[in-house]
């Protein structure tokens, strides 16, 4: 993943800027958008958006101190997930389950950045993906892709411009 130095103020300003230019479709609703902070340099970001009646987007990012760069942080791990909403928790946030249905998911949890497409398994590493640089993707590119997919009915691989294999 191409991590760039950031800090909490920069991160929230970047989010706000992109959020302002984002137009969510009328059948989308934001269920939660929050940071859980341990300090100014360590935090996680969680964003949940419901799409229509049965799908949702989940964005998770975790930031940690950048060793050797005083006051700077870096994105250590992330999950961009779009799939069927299986269950809502009592807090109004989708609860994830093992083998959560996946339409598309990009993450770097447990291994280098990889793609899940159409199902939780297999994990497609960057080496087998053509046309899409996974570690270049940010949460807003992911969201905009999902919005285009739902509005145009084009398949997700066409929208994001990748082939596997």
């Amino acid at each position: 993943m191409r991590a760039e130095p950031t800090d909490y103020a920069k991160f929230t300003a970047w989010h706000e800027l992109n959020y302002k230019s984002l137009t969510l479709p009328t059948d989308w609703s934001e269920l939660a958008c929050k940071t859980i902070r341990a300090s100014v340099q360590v935090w996680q970001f969680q964003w949940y958006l419901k799409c229509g009646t049965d799908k949702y987007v989940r964005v998770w990012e975790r930031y940690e101190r950048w060793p050797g760069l005083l006051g700077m942080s870096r994105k250590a791990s992330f999950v961009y997930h779009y799939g069927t909403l299986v269950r809502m928790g009592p807090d109004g946030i989708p609860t994830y389950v093992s083998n959560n249905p996946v339409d598309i998911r990009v993450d770097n949890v447990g291994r280098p950045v990889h793609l899940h497409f159409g199902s939780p398994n297999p994990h497609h590493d960057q080496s087998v993906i053509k046309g899409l640089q996974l570690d270049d993707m940010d949460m807003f590119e992911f969201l905009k892709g999902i919005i285009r997919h739902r509005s145009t009915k084009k398949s997700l691989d066409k929208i994001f411009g990748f082939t596997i294999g």
Partner: protein
Amino acid sequence: MSPIREEFVTLAEVDELIRKFEEKYSISTIEFLRNAELRASIPEDDVFQWEAFEAHRNELLRTGEELRSAYLSTVAKSPEESYDPPAAEKQSLLAA
């Protein structure tokens, strides 16, 4: 206006969340972090959260220690602690 809402976690809250993961998978956090094979058998979302809470825990411990050190450096020493006895008195104290 960004919709981001901020939450802060305490060490006790993070400890409790980590404890739940340790119970769920019957392993310690140390084992979880050290054993890549074992970690690969755990759903990615749980791995993400577990790692995140452990990072939060470390950060809270670190900032707590920094705060403690900073506080202690400002505390004035008591007269007994800051008393520097004359050389002759030091010698007799050492001899005793």
